C-alpha cells in the first residue's frame, strides 16, 4: 500500500527529507528529552533551517508557500518519530496562523519572518482556569488607554503550551463586554513588563512540551499589536483552531502509526505457546483493526487538508478528522500496550508513553465532546 498515494512529487521529496531527519535525529533523541522534561529547541531550530517552521505561509514572509496538505503530512511524519516535537511544530503554526490571516502588513512583516525561520517560537493563549471548552467566557482583560495608543492586559491563562519557552504569544483577551464579540487578539512578546509565567504543569505525558500559566499584571501592549479589529479575537481564535484541529489529526495519525509499528514488530518476535503471537487470530484481528483505523484517519485528514487548500468550508470536516484520528490514536496506543502484555506496562518499551501521549489528543484544541458539538450543531441548523 502506498501510504503517500495522491501526493505530488514535490511533497514526496519534502517528506523524504523529513523522514531522514526523523530517523537520524529526532526519533533517537526523543526518549532523552521526554525523560528530562525539556523542549527540543535545537531540533525545532533544525526544522526551521530545513524550511519547515512556516510551511504553508507566504514566501514573502519567509514561509515555504506550500499547500496546507504538505504541512499536515510533515506533522504526521515528525509525530511518528518524536511526538512532542510535532506538537511543538503544530502549536507554533497555530500561533502564527491568526497573524498570517488577520494581521496588518506591518505586524506580519515584523513577526512572521522570525517565526517562519524557526528563530522564534510561538505560543497560543486562549484557555483560562475556568474557561476551557467554554472559551468565550474568558476573563483576561485588555483595556485601551485614553489616547488609544496601547492596551493594558490583566488576568491569567492556563495550560499554555510553550509558556515561558516561546518568544511570541498570540493572546485572546476581553476588550469589550461579555460573550464572543467582546474578545480581541494580541501579539505579545516574552520579556515585556507585567507579563510573567506561573507554575509549570505536571502532566501525564507530553513531557518534552512544557506548559505554563501566563500571568498579566497591567502588561502594556502597543495598539499596533492588536491582530485584526477589536472584537474580532474570537473569530481569529476559532479560525486558528480549525487549522489546529487538522494538525492534531495529523499528529494523532503519526502517533498511532508509531504504536502500531512497535506492536507489529513485537508480535512477530514474541513467541508464546510455541509460535509467534502474531499468528494467533485474536491478536491478528486486533492488529487488522488498528491498521484499518490508521489508514482511515490518514485518508480523512489528508482529504480535509485538500478541501482547505481548495478554499472550501472545512470547519465541520476538520472536527470530524480531529475526533476520528485522536480516538484512533487512543485505541491503537492502548491496544499496542495490550499486544506487548506485561512489557507494554514497563517504561523500558515506548508504548506506555505513546498511550499517555494519546490521551491528551482527545482533550486539546477542543475536547472530542466539543468536536461532536461542532458537528452536531451543523446538523441541527441545516
Amino acid at each position, binding site marked *: 500500500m502506498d501510504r503517500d498515494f495522491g501526493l505530488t512529487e514535490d511533497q514526496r521529496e519534502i517528506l523524504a527529507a523529513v523522514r531522514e531527519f526523523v530517523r537520524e535525529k529526532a526519533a533517537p533523541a526523543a526518549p532523552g528529552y521526554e525523560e528530562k522534561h525539556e523542549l527540543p529547541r535545537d531540533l525545532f531550530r533544525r526544522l526551521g533551517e530545513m524550511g519547515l517552521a512556516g510551511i504553508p505561509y507566504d514566501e514573502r514572509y519567509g514561509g515555504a508557500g506550500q499547500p496546507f496538505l504538505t504541512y499536515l503530512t510533515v506533522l504526521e511524519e515528525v509525530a511518528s518519530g518524536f511526538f512532542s516535537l510535532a506538537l511543538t511544530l503544530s502549536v507554533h503554526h497555530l500561533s502564527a496562523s491568526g497573524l498570517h490571516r488577520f494581521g496588518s502588513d506591518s505586524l506580519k512583516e515584523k513577526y512572521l519572518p522570525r517565526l517562519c525561520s524557526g528563530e522564534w517560537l510561538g505560543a497560543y493563549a486562549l484557555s483560562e482556569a475556568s474557561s476551557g471548552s467554554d472559551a468565550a467566557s474568558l476573563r483576561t482583560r485588555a483595556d485601551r488607554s485614553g489616547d488609544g495608543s496601547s492596551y493594558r492586559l490583566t488576568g491569567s491563562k492556563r495550560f499554555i503550551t510553550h509558556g515561558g519557552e516561546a518568544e511570541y504569544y498570540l493572546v485572546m483577551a476581553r476588550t469589550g463586554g461579555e460573550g464572543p464579540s467582546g474578545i480581541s487578539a494580541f501579539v505579545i512578546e516574552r520579556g515585556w513588563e507585567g507579563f510573567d509565567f506561573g507554575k509549570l504543569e505536571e502532566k501525564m505525558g507530553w513531557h518534552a512540551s512544557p506548559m505554563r500559566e501566563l500571568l498579566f499584571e497591567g502588561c502594556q501592549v502597543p495598539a499596533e499589536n492588536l491582530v485584526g479589529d477589536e472584537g474580532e479575537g474570537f473569530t481569529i481564535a476559532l479560525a486558528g483552531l480549525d487549522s489546529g484541529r487538522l494538525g492534531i489529526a495529523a499528529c494523532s495519525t503519526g502517533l498511532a502509526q508509531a504504536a502500531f509499528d512497535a506492536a507489529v514488530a513485537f508480535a512477530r518476535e514474541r513467541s508464546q505457546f510455541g509460535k509467534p503471537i502474531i499468528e494467533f487470530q485474536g491478536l491478528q484481528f486486533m492488529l487488522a483493526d488498528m491498521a484499518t483505523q490508521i489508514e482511515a484517519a490518514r485518508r480523512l485528514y489528508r482529504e480535509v487538508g485538500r478541501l482547505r487548500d481548495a478554499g472550501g468550508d472545512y470547519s465541520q470536516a476538520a472536527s470530524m478528522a480531529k475526533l476520528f484520528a485522536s480516538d484512533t490514536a487512543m485505541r491503537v496506543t492502548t491496544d499496542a500496550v495490550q499486544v506487548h502484555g*506485561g512489557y507494554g506496562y514497563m517504561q523500558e518499551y515506548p508504548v506506555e508513553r505513546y498511550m499517555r501521549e494519546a490521551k491528551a489528543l482527545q482533550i486539546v484544541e477542543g475536547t472530542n465532546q466539543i468536536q461532536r458539538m461542532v458537528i452536531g450543531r451543523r446538523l441541527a441548523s441545516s
Partner: protein
Amino acid sequence: MDFQLSEDHITTQKWVHEFAEKEIRPVAAQYDETEEFPWPVIKKAAEIGLYSLEFYMESVAQDPTGLVLPIAMEETCWGCAGIALGIFGTGLPLSALAYSGTPDQIMKWAPQMFGTPNEPRVASLCVTEPNAGSDVSALRTSARRDGDEWVLNGQKIFATNGGQAKVHIVVATVDPNLGHRGQAAFIVGPDTPGLRPGKKEKKLGIRASDTSEILLEECRVPLDNVVGGPEKLEAKMEKARSSSTKQSAALKAFEMTRPSVAAQAVGIARAAFEFATQYAKERNTFGRPIIEHEGVAFKLADMAMEIDAARLLTYRAAWLARNGTFEHAEGSMSKLKAGETAVWVTEQAVQILGGYGYIKDFPVEKWYRDAKIYTIFEGTSEIQRIVISRALARN
C-alpha cells in the same frame, strides 16, 4: 437469592474504607511520584489487622459467601491500587502455599510471610519469566534435586513484592518433559544465598507496588521446601507420566483468585467515577454544570452501569469460588469485565475533567495509568477470552 450484603460485610466495608480514606488516599500521589515501597502504610495496615495472617485465616477463610476479600480489595484500591498491591501482594504466595501446602508448611511459613505488626514483612510469588508470560508452561527456571536439597536456577521477572519480600515462592520446572505438570512451587526462605533481586521495573502505573526481577543462581533450599512436600510431587509426576493431560493445579488456583483481582479493578473504577461525578456537578460551561449536558450525563450513566455490572460478576464469581466451582469460566468473566471496565471508566473520567484530567493536580490521570495493568496481569484479557471460549467449546 439475596442481593443484600450481610452485617459482617458492611462492617468490613466500612472498616477498610475508613482506612483507605485516612491512610491510603492522602499519600497515594506521593508514592506514585517516588515509586517507593509504602512500608509505613503497610505497618499501619498491620497494626489494625488488615495486613495480617489472621485476616486471611479468620475473616476471609471463615466467610461462607466468599465476598469479604473482594469487598476489602475494592475499598483498598479505591484508596490506591499500587499501595493495595503492597498490602494484598502477600495474598498470592499465601494462597499458593495454602492451596497445595502441607499443614506443617503452612504453620511454618505463613507467619513468616507477614512478620509482626511491629516489623511487618511481605512475600512474593515468582512465576513470570522473560519468555513465559501468558504461556506459563514455557517456564525455564529449573529445580534440580541434589541429595536432600533442591537447587534452583533461572530468571524471574515482574514479581510483585519481589524486591521487598523475605519469603519467595518460586515456580520452577522439575521435569521439562511433563510441561506444566512437571512444575512445582518452592519456598525460598529469608536470606537464602543464591536468590537476589535484579532490576526493579519503572511502570506506567501501580508505581507504589514493587515489581522486580528475581535472579536464582544455584539457590539451595531443603527438600521439604517444595510446596506440598516431595512425596506428593513425586506422586503427581508419576501420574502425569502415565495419564493424559488435565488442568494444572496452578492454573486452577489462578482461576480462583480472579474475582479478587476483578474487585481491585472495580475499586479503581469507582474512585474515578465518584470523582468525575463530583467534578461534573461543580464545573460550569455554557452557563450550567456540565452534568446537565447530555454528552457528559450519558457518559456518567454508562460508567455507573458498567461498574455495577463488573461488581455483580465479581460477587458471583467470588461466591462460586467458595460455594461451588466455575462451570462457565465465571472467574475469567469477572476479571475480563472488571479490567476492561476500569480502563474505560478511568479514561472517561480523564475526559470529563478535560485539561484538568491530564495534569497531576488531580488524581484521575493516575487512576487511568493504574487501571491499564488490570487488562494485563493475572491473565491478560486475551487469556481470559481463551478460558471463556474454551469453556464454551467444552460444554
